[in-house]
């Protein structure tokens, strides 16, 4: 998230919380969060009354099988929140004044009550920003979304070309995403987002992706590939090289209009900080609610060891957010650990919890992709150690229960249905 100092608009672009600024009666040059050692950042690290930004995966069901899926989605979980339970979650979020939720999955549009739930949330003052692979979008659906008061849509695509994208997201998925973008653009939806996970194979296509966004009048959003879920299987092959990380850093510095979800703060050790709080928000300003109602500290760590509770428990989400010991632990002042002696710790804060967790690195040590070479990659400690991946997964399996390899093609009859 961005929390640049004080300026009125245009404030730095940002997600997950969107553009943000700070205003206080203090001197206007005071840095609040962006940059280094902001006092506000320190306070946010101690936690808030409610998350600023909550990721809600509506379903583990997905008609694609992207190789890097961080929630290992595919099969619907039989314990998925019912429509009534999902509406009750919205009621709880509204009561806590969670201003909006980032809705994903799985493919959220595969939930039969998707539109009802979005309507219900928006009607209760909880805005919806949802991520979709676009396969289920129709002209009618796009018009319905366009008519809603407070809905943002982002279409996932992982390459400027079908070849680059489809290798990761499955044959036909590039065409499906472009078709969805065409429908949104033609429906009067307004500005939508194009969401890209940066990989070794699409770094060179960032300019072309920005151009694609420009042609639609859309906003480009790029996020970091994490070794979460099935991402652990492909991380070694897909994560950007050290040289590419420097390219991405400079490209982001040159394109402050591109949204990042604050996901590249580990790159800030390369020089001037990137837009955003440069803070791991896990359990402090962000969290995840998964399709069965489990609450996790980090949207990228669906793992028992970071599960804080369930919305079905007495007290619901509020009790989990305010009382969970898991969250309390993350809100206590963190040790810089092995990073304490590095002059860049204040810039990168040791990097990403998920990246460390799923590569088996100590959580109080450097990010595996530490740009100064202090992480596991710098020591050549790949491939990933076995056994650190999450046991929670919903990948498609064959009759023997073995996970099906590779991405699957878009089934067009399904995609073209209403």
């Amino acid at each position, binding site marked *: 998230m961005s929390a640049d100092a*004080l300026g*009125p*608009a245009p404030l730095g672009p940002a997600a997950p919380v969107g*553009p943000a600024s*700070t205003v206080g*009666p203090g001197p206007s040059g005071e840095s609040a969060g962006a940059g280094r050692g902001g006092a506000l950042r320190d*306070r946010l690290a101690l936690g808030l*009354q409610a998350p600023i930004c909550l990721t809600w995966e509506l379903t583990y069901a997905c008609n694609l099988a992207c190789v890097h899926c961080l929630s290992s989605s595919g099969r619907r979980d039989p314990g998925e929140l019912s429509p009534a339970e999902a509406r009750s979650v919205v009621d709880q979020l509204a009561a806590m004044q969670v*201003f909006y939720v980032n809705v994903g999955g799985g493919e959220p549009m595969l939930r039969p009550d998707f539109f009802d739930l979005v309507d219900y949330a928006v009607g209760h003052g909880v*805005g919806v920003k949802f991520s979709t692979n676009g396969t289920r979008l129709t002209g009618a659906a796009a018009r319905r979304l366009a008519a809603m008061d407070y809905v943002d849509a982002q279409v996932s695509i992982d390459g400027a070309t079908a070849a680059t994208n489809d290798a990761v997201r499955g044959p036909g998925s590039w065409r499906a995403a472009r078709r969805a973008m065409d429908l949104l653009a033609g429906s009067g939806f307004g500005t939508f987002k194009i969401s890209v996970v940066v990989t070794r194979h699409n770094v060179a296509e960032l300019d072309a992706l920005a151009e694609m966004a420009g042609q639609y009048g859309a906003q480009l959003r790029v996020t970091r590939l994490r070794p979460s879920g099935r991402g652990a299987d492909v991380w070694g092959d897909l994560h950007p090289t050290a040289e590419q990380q420097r390219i991405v850093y400079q490209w982001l510095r040159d394109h402050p209009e591109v949204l990042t979800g604050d996901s590249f703060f580990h790159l800030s050790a390369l020089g001037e900080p990137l837009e955003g709080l440069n803070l791991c928000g896990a359990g402090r300003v962000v969290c995840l609610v998964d399709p069965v109602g489990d609450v996790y500290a980090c949207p990228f760590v669906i793992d028992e060891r970071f599960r804080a509770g369930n919305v079905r428990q007495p007290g619901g989400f509020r009790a989990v957010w305010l009382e969970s010991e898991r969250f309390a632990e993350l809100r206590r002042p963190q040790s810089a650990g092995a990073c304490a002696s590095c002059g860049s710790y204040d810039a990168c804060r040791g990097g990403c919890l998920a990246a460390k967790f799923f590569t088996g690195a100590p959580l109080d040590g450097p990010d595996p992709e530490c740009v100064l070479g202090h992480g596991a990659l710098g020591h050549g400690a790949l491939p990933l150690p076995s056994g650190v991946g999450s046991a929670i997964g919903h990948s498609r399996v064959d009759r023997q229960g073995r996970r099906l390899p590779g991405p699957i093609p878009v089934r067009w009859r399904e995609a073209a249905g209403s």
Partner: protein
Amino acid sequence: MTGPPAFDPGRPWRLHPRVALREEPFGALAYHYDNRRLVFLKAPRLVELLRALERFETAGEAVAAVVDPGARSGYEQALSRLAAAQVIDVR
């Protein structure tokens, strides 16, 4: 394209009707449902001032009622930035 009107403490202001405030230990979060900007309000007194605006004929009177004399110019500058961000508007 014209921006929002500049802040004038002699005029009547209010919290923008599409802005929600959520109180936090450091002050509050203000969220604008139209432009979807989030603003961290870094002082509880500033939050009190925003809520008070509507009760006074002018913003200046609200500041005088809520803020100690020595601190008023800082709060008026904060209101000016909040006007530019459309967190407050002229009523």
